[in-house]
């Protein structure tokens, strides 16, 4: 009885030790690609891609289930970077102007919930004061839209200014 217990215990300990050593020695960085993609993604887990957070999106990208243009906050810059990393071609890089958060001042009650949730500190404002979005720092993740109790936060297409206006492609093709 005692001999059997001792044998089994020592066997268990020995095998456990071997396994833990093997895990250390033969460890492979199996998720190198996953990690690389995670450094590219915004990492704020907004869920606009339809996957559970940026980790889930990275898995779907590796499995080939998602398009490199899956991330609206990342925009076409991220889509190009992902396509290059994954060695895939981008079907259409241009999907219109990016959406950015905008506050309707007449509805803002200054609850400051959005300020706490903004992953890029793009919302300026203090409690009981009207808030405003600093568009240069906003990536349009929409986390603020969900927490706003008065729905004064909306994602809207970025307004074109002289700095962001671009010549269109010539309409009439010749050559």
């Amino acid at each position, binding site marked *: 009885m005692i001999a059997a217990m001792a044998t089994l215990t020592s066997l268990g300990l020995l095998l456990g030790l071997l396994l833990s050593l093997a895990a250390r020695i033969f460890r492979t960085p199996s998720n190198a690609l996953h990690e690389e993609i995670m450094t590219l993604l*915004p*990492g*704020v887990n907004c869920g606009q891609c339809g996957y559970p957070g940026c980790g889930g999106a990275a898995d779907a990208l590796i499995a080939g289930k998602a398009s490199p243009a899956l991330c609206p*906050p*990342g*925009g*076409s*810059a*991220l889509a*190009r*970077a992902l396509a290059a990393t994954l060695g895939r071609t981008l079907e259409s890089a241009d999907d219109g102007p990016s959406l950015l958060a905008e506050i309707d001042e007449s509805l803002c009650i200054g609850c400051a919930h959005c300020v706490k949730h903004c*992953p*890029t*500190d*793009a919302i300026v404002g203090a409690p009981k004061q009207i808030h405003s979005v600093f568009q*240069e*720092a906003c*990536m349009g993740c929409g986390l603020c839209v969900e927490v706003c109790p008065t729905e004064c936060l909306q994602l809207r297409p970025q307004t*074109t*200014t*002289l700095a*962001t*206006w*671009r*010549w*269109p*492609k*010539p309409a*009439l*093709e*010749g*050559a």
Partner: protein
Amino acid sequence: MRRHDFRGGVHPPGQKHLSAERAIELLPMPPRLYLPLQQHAGGPALPIVTVGQRVGKGELLAQAQGAASAPLHAPTSGTIIAIGEFTAPHPSGLPLPTITLEADGAERWIEREPLPDPFSLSPAQVAAQVGAAGIVGMGGANFPSAVKLDKARQAGVHTLVINGAECEPYMSCDDRLMRERATDIVDGVAIMLHAVQAPRALIAIEDNKPEAIQAMRDACRSDTRIEVLNLPSRYPAGSAKQLIQWLTGLETPAGGRGTDTGLLVHNVGTAYAVHRALRDGQPLISRIVTVSGGAVAEPRNLEAPLGALAADLLAYCGGVGDDCVRLLMGGPMMGHPLPSAETPVIKGTNGILALTIAEVSEHTPSPCIRCGHCVEACPMGLLPVEMANSARREDWSGIQALGLSDCMACGSCAYRCPSHIALPQYFAYARDQLAEQRREEAKAQQIRQLIQQRQARLARAEQAKAEAAAQRQAAKKQRAIAAVEDDD
């Protein structure tokens, strides 16, 4: 000095006869002036006046912001009635922050201090005064002149080139300026020579302007450092890089600047503005504008205050006929379409053109016939047809490899193209798409940084909270021990 030819180029009809024989006239002061805060390359100017404030002629309205920027002065006396947005002289028709000045008609100057002799100032002080007068490149590049002067002195430039080529068709404002105010220009050139500390200046004028050449020769007869040269009339002889090549045979390196070859190019209008600023204490508040084109009743050269609307200038020239199909700011080769005439004259506006259907190319593009005329015409030695193909395929690395950044959008290729392909439009499109990509990448980088900074801040706050809690615990324990000891 041996002259060298530059590559390519075209001979578009000059059309300068429409306005070149009309002496410069002063535009009557319009009731309102619209002064965009961004009239120059670099950061926008920062307004220092308030709405309702009365200002004198020449008073500073907005100061320069950043290393390359330019201040803005009041072109006349009056009241600031708005600081808001107004349509920019830009093909998009989008607005720019603009100061609106209502003229009071008194032309009351601010008090001006007597000016020291510019030659008693140090070169850096001269450049600083040029900067303070808000002078930018008057040929249309709008780059702050003081920055150019300083950089050229530091680079040890040996020759100052004054560009009086005016190779754009229709334009005659520089021609008239040289014919009528040659001594003032030559004085400005001498001041600029002092600012750059260069031993000599060359004034290059296209040989289709014999009167201007004669006037300038007469004006600089006493100054042996300054020489007037006649350039062959071929577009784009007035482009800085082509001008340098014609003068020296040196080609400006790709991605480089003219000063890399030891020459500094400034426009004649800039030399005149420098003279006005350092001799009369008049900042850059007006400029000569050619108003021309087949749809203008009486084409003229006008000295217009900055901020006057294109409509004011056109109205003074007898108005625009119904046959006007296109309104341009600048020349027909490199100018850009204006969304409406209700947009102001800015520092770089050399012309306003109202063109009829006979003057514009309204052909439907047809397929490329591989004739190679665009390649022959390109003064930069590029392959326009290949670049346009890359732009159409959206092959952005390909078009960069073909030298898009060396294209100066002169339009020679499109002028020669028998298929009427909109080559420069493809290049503008490609250039903007690349700029958009750069902007997006910079923003993505910034966003990543902001996220990291916020996470670091939250972590610090968490740690501080934990430390405070630990301290409270320790203090509580200490108090408890003290209480026990007291009890003893």
